[in-house]
């Protein structure tokens, strides 16, 4: 299957993100990495666009929940998958309420992660299309057509 997802991996375990990124790139994904929540936000605010953000929870400086909150404020359509060794059930529920679509535990199966990334991108496209349709409908309604 031809893949073209753009993914941002956010984790302070740089060794983990570099190897995971290499494995994903070998499968056709475009992958960028950030070692902290602050770096992730800087990349997004600097204009980098991603289909999916894969985010760790426990990170120095700005933790995963804080990063998630800021990411969702920046782009409410952003598809975020939490990939962490530190999640509790409560963390998972809270993250989903804050807008994360999935919570996965480390170590994760790569094919399962790729499947979830693929689904996330499709959902994002559908969300954007739905929003565009709503905008077109609003314009048509305003013009009385």
């Amino acid at each position, binding site marked *: 299957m031809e893949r073209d997802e753009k993914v941002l991996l956010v984790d*302070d*375990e740089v*060794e*983990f993100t570099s*190897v*995971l990124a*290499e*494995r994903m790139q*070998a499968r056709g994904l475009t992958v960028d990495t950030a070692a902290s929540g602050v770096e992730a936000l800087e990349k997004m605010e600097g204009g980098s666009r991603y289909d999916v953000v894969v985010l760790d*929870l*426990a*990170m*120095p*400086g*700005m*933790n995963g929940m*804080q990063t998630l909150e800021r990411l969702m404020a920046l782009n409410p359509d952003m598809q975020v998958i939490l990939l962490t*060794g*530190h999640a*509790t059930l409560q963390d998972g529920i809270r993250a989903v309420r804050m807008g994360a679509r999935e919570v996965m*535990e*480390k*170590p*994760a199966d*790569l094919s399962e992660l790729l499947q979830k990334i693929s689904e996330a991108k499709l959902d994002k496209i559908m969300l954007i299309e739905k929003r565009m349709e709503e905008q077109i409908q609003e314009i048509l309604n305003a013009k009385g057509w």
Partner: protein
Amino acid sequence: MNQPPSRSLESEGLAFFGIVTASISHELKNVAAIINESAGLLHDLSVGAQAGRKPLDPARVMKLSADIVRNVERSVSILNRMNRFAHSVDEPKQTVDLFALCRDTMALAARAAVSRGIELIDELPNQTAPIPSFPFGLYRLLYQAIQIAVLDVQGKPSVHLSATLAPTLVRVQLRRDGSLMCTEEHRTRREAIEKLMQALGGCVRIDENMPDAMGVQLELPTS
């Protein structure tokens, strides 16, 4: 330090045991994830070479193997720490190297601190500090002291742990920049520290009224 910890301290200790073992299991998951991906990449490279797409680069393979070995060593270090912590309940009172126990507790508390965006900095002396005490109680005391030091940090997010060894006592100090907001959690932890210190026969001072910093000072007898 004449009485072993009371029954209520022991029941509270069970909750502490749960927190620490959960934290250790999370740490191990992180290491397992690195080993998992490194082994996966070795597999990917081998499959690619077997299919004739790209020859195996020996230097790359050796680096990945070394990464796996290093992370296995990291996991063994975490397991050894877990083992020392688990055995701290075996004998109520024994001779403990307080500085080594401080370092273990820092490692156990590090991820929880990181979750709050705070780094723990080891400034402990490079020597041993043998004291007769209750190791499990000491773990709890030091963990609580670290937790109170990482509450509501403003400013530079780091907590410094240092200590001095005198003939009759050991003084352990935690210091951080950023003043302390007096919250319910702070009051609860403060009470826990005072109760534990009473059982351990030492004394505690929490400096929380400094304008831009806060400190916790723990004094424990050496005999």
